[in-house]
């Protein structure tokens, strides 16, 4: 009957209008209104209240609004009612024996007591849940209310600054740009350091394909004892995302949305047109060449063009979410609909996403239930062109910084954007308007779960999951650009089809015998990953008008290109876990997972990933009872092994592959060649981690937190062992080497002031990381990689240093005279050249004089959240700090050692350059720069400390209490993201990493950070 009611037309109508009358008017109903307050008398919003009729078993749910008020507008009058009031962190209260009278209102006042029950909070762990007090591993929990707000198009952004030891970095601020998350450092030198994202039990989901408003909580499994249940994919940490579920009771409709304005957070200071002409004149004169700009010409140019102003704009971002949830006894639903649209501050870039989620649970009987979690998402992303290219291939940002400021931004008489033929750069506006890069991603994923409980304590679960991703990327470079002009238009389409299927069977048995509490989990899972791709490209189109829609209109000879690929791999696992608690005081968790992958040879297919952890709830011991102030004290010790299987396919097999193409006559001839030196002995990179933690809580959990120490050793690193090239191959993949991450994670939450009208809560997360390569194979005493365009290898992997440290020359001054330069032994040095430190005293500068200049991993990271509430106002601020992190700045390299002298550059390096008249300059002369560029370009000028402190979000909120029957509450907020960043770094964003890779950081004209002002609205019907 309840079900029929849920599906009734009237309710559907109500749903469509988002307000209105939910239940049909019934003859005999009464109204119940209540208010829920905490011990200090403060109104408590978001408290769940469940009404239950003892006679009819009818149940109905409600939630308190911002004034702490809940209302049941129409409850049938017969029988007596009980009201169960529950809220996380408070003791659940049940008030019974209420009899209602028709058309009369009954009032209830509830006072909630804080409970140690924060400890009874249920935490999602892999393949199950545990009470927080029973946890033995290191699990960070970020609840719905604590998620970091902002224009987030990636779920990982929502944990920024919230969990100690979890560092979230926005590697590009482009709409739809990349987010990097590192859990407790980086353990793998050559394989992936990416976390495993598990959404509602489905591993490997793209964190961009989820609406943040659908997220109920995020758990990060930080240590190996917690993560080992995910075996070979857990080495870099596991992020578990749990989405919202329906609650039995009347339908709850919420709207949550914002509209924001984004602005360039910081402009880079490049030479203005007058400065540029002046500098070029001076430098030409210093080289005995005529001055390129006459005074008359300089006067005619005036202030010239600021190309950053031309390419950046103030952009709008908006997100709108409507959610419906509710349910009856045997079914529950949650439906979330989200639309996100983020324009980019770089013109012609944007990101648009439609997301729909349906979580539906059916429980035909007490013993059996089925649930479906389904997410549909589609994103359309206009991306910036080639952020990391150089010269004519460079992107708009790169080009705008280097483009000639004396050239007009207006097109010439032929409608073409103007060029400077001497600087080998495209006009930035021609790139913006002439080049299109668009990516469309359709992602559908979901999980169907069936639970069966044949006897008390035993749950059998079968799950089928799928993650289907289709994407298409279009690229079109029109005749508006020089490159497009010379090629008659360049168009390509790449299509990718990625599928992931999962099937798993789990059995769980829970039993409590006196003080002994057992929970046993066992299961098996099988997964298949399949990826295929196809690319088509052509040039010399009849017209640009057809864009990529008519590739066959290219000329068919000059660069037509087709390619395709497919690969698949499979994973099969057994897993088991035992949880044992004795008197809730002594805790033991042991788990193992045996993972088999198709990627390894028959003798190494399976590997075992065990873990064991113990916990001691000290505060439950009798001797602690006198220490009343201590509400929680727990000691945890854990050990586990986790793996990293992120290696390519076929590494253990000898096959032939499509090789190079020979040219005979005027045609290409495809060749075939051996693909690799196979290694049948390859196995997983394995991380062993020890974790020791203390959880504490004082004054009824007013102050709570944890302190943890960990040591992680990642051994059997997959290395491409260089083999002599005369074998015909550069390298062979082998296992060797060890990276150690050790550190401290500290988390502190405190309710500083809990007054009736005013309250203040703080939370701090702090982590310290020490990363070190502790063992390398003897065949690779040091690994030096990372070189790009004209920058040499800079990222060093060497025993005793953090992985991918910056390696280059230390500048210890500037040569003042040619004679001083000549006697230094530094090749090619002249007065005004930087003086590299002769580290080994060899009286000459050789590659042996390079030293470690910094680490790409932060040493300290912290997040500090404060929330103040005064009456109906709230103020929330999140400040982030990242310290001891370095980055190689390609913009500085380009400024100090320009590829092209006539390009514009960062002002600082020219305005304070060495000249005979400015001997105390900070920077070299810029004359004959190639003698100290090239192999010397990685040095203490170009490797910069990018530590920063940032006010990530500042939110002022106001909640309007309402007595309305339809609209339960309205709250509005004004938020500012990235309001300020304190850093010594000169570029757009110290956190950006446009081309460094997964560990090493390189800033090269990164898409700049934006400052965002958002106006948000939350409605609860």
């Amino acid at each position, binding site marked *: 009957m309840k079900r029929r009611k849920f599906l009734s037309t009237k309710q559907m109508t109500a749903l469509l209008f988002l307000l209105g009358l939910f239940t049909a008017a019934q003859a005999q109903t009464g109204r119940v209104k209540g208010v829920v307050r905490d011990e200090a008398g403060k109104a408590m919003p978001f408290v769940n209240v469940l009404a239950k009729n003892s006679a009819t078993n009818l149940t109905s749910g409600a939630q308190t609004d911002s004034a702490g008020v809940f209302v049941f507008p129409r409850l049938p009058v017969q029988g007596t009612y009980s009201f169960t009031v529950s809220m996380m962190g408070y003791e659940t209260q049940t008030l019974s024996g209420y009899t209602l009278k028709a058309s009369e209102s009954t009032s209830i006042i509830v006072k909630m007591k804080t409970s140690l029950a924060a400890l009874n909070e249920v935490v999602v762990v892999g393949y199950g849940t545990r009470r927080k007090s029973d946890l033995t591993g290191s699990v960070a929990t970020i609840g719905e209310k604590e998620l970091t707000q902002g224009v987030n198009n990636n779920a990982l952004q929502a944990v920024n600054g919230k969990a100690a030891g979890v560092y979230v970095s926005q590697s590009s601020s482009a709409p739809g740009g990349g987010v990097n998350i590192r859990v407790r450092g980086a353990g793998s030198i050559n394989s992936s350091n990416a976390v495993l994202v598990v959404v509602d039990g489905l591993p490997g989901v793209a964190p961009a394909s989820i609406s943040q408003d659908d997220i109920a909580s995020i758990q990060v499994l930080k240590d190996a004892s917690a993560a080992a249940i995910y075996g070979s994919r857990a080495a870099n940490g596991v992020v578990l995302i749990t989405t919202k579920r329906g609650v039995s009771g009347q339908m709850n409709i919420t709207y949550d949305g914002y509209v924001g304005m984004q602005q360039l957070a910081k402009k880079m200071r490049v030479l203005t047109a007058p400065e540029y002409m002046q500098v070029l004149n001076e430098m030409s004169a210093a080289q005995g060449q005529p001055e390129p700009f006459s005074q008359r010409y300089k006067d005619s140019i005036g202030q010239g063009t600021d190309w950053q102003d031309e390419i950046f704009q103030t952009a709008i971002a908006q997100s709108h979410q409507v959610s419906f949830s509710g349910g009856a006894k045997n079914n529950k639903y949650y439906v979330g609909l989200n639309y996100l649209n983020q324009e980019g501050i770089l013109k012609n870039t944007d990101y648009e996403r439609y997301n729909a989620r349906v979580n539906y649970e059916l429980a035909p009987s007490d013993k059996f239930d089925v649930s479906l979690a389904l997410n549909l998402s589609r994103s359309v992303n206009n991306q910036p062109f080639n952020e990391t290219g150089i010269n004519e291939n460079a992107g708009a940002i790169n080009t705008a910084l280097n483009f000639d400021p004396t050239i007009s931004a207006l097109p010439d008489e032929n409608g073409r954007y103007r060029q400077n033929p001497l600087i080998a750069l495209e006009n930035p506006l021609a790139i913006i308007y002439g080049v299109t890069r668009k990516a469309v991603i359709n992602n559908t994923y979901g999980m169907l779960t069936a639970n069966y409980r044949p006897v008390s304590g035993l749950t059998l679960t079968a799950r089928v999951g799928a993650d289907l991703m289709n994407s298409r990327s279009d690229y079109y470079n029109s005749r508006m650009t020089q490159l497009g002009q010379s090629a008659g238009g360049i168009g390509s389409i790449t299509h990718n089809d990625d599928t992931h299927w999962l099937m798993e069977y789990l059995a769980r048995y829970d039993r409590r015998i006196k003080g002994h509490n057992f929970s046993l989990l066992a299961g098996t899972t099988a997964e298949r990953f399949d990826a295929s791709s196809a690319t088509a490209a052509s040039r010399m189109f009849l017209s640009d008008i057809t864009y990529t829609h008519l590739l066959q209109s290219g000329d068919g000879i000059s660069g037509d290109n087709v390619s395709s690929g497919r690969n698949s*791999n499979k994973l099969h696992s057994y897993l088991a876990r035992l949880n044992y608690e004795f008197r809730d005081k002594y805790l033991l968790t042991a788990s193992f997972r045996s993972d088999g992958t198709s990627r390894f040879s028959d003798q190494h297919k399976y590997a075992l990933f065990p873990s064991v952890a113990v916990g001691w709830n000290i505060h439950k011991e009798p001797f602690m009872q006198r220490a009343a102030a201590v509400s929680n004290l727990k000691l945890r010790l854990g050990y586990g092994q986790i793996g990293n299987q992120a290696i390519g396919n076929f590494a253990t097999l000898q096959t*032939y592959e499509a090789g190079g193409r020979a040219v005979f006559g005027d045609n290409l001839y495809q060749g075939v060649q051996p693909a690799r030196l196979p290694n049948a002995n390859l196995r997983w990179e394995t991380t062993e981690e020890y974790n020791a933690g203390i959880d504490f809580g004082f004054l009824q959990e007013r102050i709570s937190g944890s302190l943890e120490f960990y040591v992680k050793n990642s051994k059997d690193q997959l290395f491409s062992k260089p083999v002599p090239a005369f074998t015909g191959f550069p390298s062979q993949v082998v296992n060797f080497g060890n990276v150690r991450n050790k550190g401290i994670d500290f988390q502190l939450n405190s309710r500083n002031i809990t007054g009736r009208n005013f309250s203040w809560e703080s939370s701090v997360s702090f982590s310290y990381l020490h990363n070190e390569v502790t063992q390398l194979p003897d065949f690779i005493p040091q690994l030096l990689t990372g070189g790009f365009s004209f920058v040499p290898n800079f990222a060093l992997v060497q025993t005793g240093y953090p992985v991918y440290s910056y390696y280059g020359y230390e500048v210890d001054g500037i040569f003042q005279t040619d004679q001083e330069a000549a006697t230094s032994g530094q090749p090619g040095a002249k007065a005004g050249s930087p003086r590299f430190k002769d580290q080994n005293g060899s009286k000459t500068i050789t590659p042996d004089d390079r030293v470690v200049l910094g680490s790409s991993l932060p040493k300290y990271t912290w997040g500090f959240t404060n929330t103040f509430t005064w009456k109906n106002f709230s103020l929330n601020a999140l400040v982030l700090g990242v310290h001891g992190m370095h980055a190689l700045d390609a913009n500085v390299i380009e400024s100090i050692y320009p590829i092209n002298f006539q390009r514009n550059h960062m002002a600082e390096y020219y305005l304070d350059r060495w000249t005979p008249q400015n001997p105390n300059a900070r920077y070299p002369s810029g004359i004959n720069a*190639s003698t100290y560029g090239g192999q010397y370009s990685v040095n203490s000028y170009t490797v910069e400390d990018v530590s920063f402190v940032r006010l990530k979000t500042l939110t002022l909120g106001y909640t309007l209490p309402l007595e309305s029957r339809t609209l339960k509450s309205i709250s509005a907020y004004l938020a500012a993201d990235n309001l300020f960043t304190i850093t010594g770094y000169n570029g757009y964003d110290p956190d950006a990493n446009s081309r460094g890779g997964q560990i090493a950081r390189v800033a090269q004209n990164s898409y700049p950070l934006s400052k965002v002002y958002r106006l948000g609205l939350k409605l609860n019907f």
Partner: protein
Amino acid sequence: MKITIPIIFAALLTCSACTKFLKEDIYTEYDPAQFANSVDGFEKVLNSAYAELQIRGYDHRNDVYCFGEFCTDVMLQTGGGFEAQAKEFITFTWNPTNGFLNTAWSKAYRAIRNSNVLLDNKDAATAIPPAKLNALVAEARFIRATAYAYLYNLFGPVPLITTAKNVDPGAFRATDEEMSTFIIDELKAAAGALPVQQSLRGKATRGAALGVLCKFYLNKKMWQACADVAEEIRALKAYSLFDDVSRLFAVENENNSEYIFAFPCIAQSGYGNITMAHTFPPAYPILPNWIIFGAQFRLYTSFVDSFEPADERLKMILREYTNTSGVTIRMNRNAAGAALNNARSFKYVPDPAGQSDAMGNDIPYIRYADILLALAESLNELNGPTQPAIDLVNEVRARASASLITLAGYGSREALRDFILAERAREFVGEGKRREDLIRMGQFISGAQARGMNAKPWHVLYPIPQREIEANKNLEQNEGYVQ
């Protein structure tokens, strides 16, 4: 219970099938056996060997210009990010970590590996008709020997790897004699089995094998052997000088009979000749489908001045142009007559169908003029100046409408030797031959020192790439370079 049973069954099925489930699926690679016993399979392997032997695109820039020209007295480079890389070669500051040397080394050994794959399979290839098999084997031996001759030229003796199976990663460098004997014997054997003509331009011919051998002898100063092979090439009657030297390198004349062995190029990214994008001076009036790079290949004024005004080859050198703004720019000498070292070699007549940096001009590896001058040089070294040697030089000069020289004018071996060296510069500028010519004549180091470079005697060989030394402790570095 109705529902439990299928669940348990399914679970059991998963387990029993798991071995099969975890078999690796391969969709994009091949079983080696597929290519081991058919003409088609062999040809596919051979294609990949040629692909590694052929040097074009940016490898051509690094190989011909950096290794062969910038370290000499004819050509230099400035501009672009490439400047810092080119500078190492201009200023004799290259070292074992140089990436270009490593690339060249690895590429040559991949050509050797791919040839060895074919040669390893030859005895089991019973399905291939013997005559066809011999021809394919001869091509593989040619590629392998040519790659070794190339490595020998740059690095001296290197490890001799003659199989693709279980290659010893601790192999030592061969002795000079082993290396030379191997190259000579293999090229002779290949020449014996290769056809004089191939239907496809760019494939190995008898003339190509003899040409590589002739040049190997020349650089080894095995004058008589060099002269004999040169005569053998002339006796093939397959080659002649192309009449209009200024159009010899144009795309439309690729099928000339002067190129003995060349790396064909097409106007497609990755498969083109990228010289001109580095040669066009700034704001040169190019076609809209071409491009001008910041990196600029320039000619020394002293070299440009060595041409007679009537020399047809001077037509291929840009000494003045009117830029897109209508301004006339002087390249070789300024109005005051000062040397600018900025003229350009327009030898590769820009390809009208060029695609951005990629043009279709084939890259000659050995051409007939080279053989004629090699013969002249050998004869001079063997017998001193003689009329046949003078005639050979004149054959090359006459084609370029340069004045003819006389025996009387070059009375000594030294005089003729110097003239031939200078003539080779004029004839082969931009073809990567200057370094070996100067080394052979003992002027590579002294010339560099005269240009003010810190050149040392051991710079006649490039260093073994550092990564090779690190990967194989048995590999000895060349003298002068830090181990």
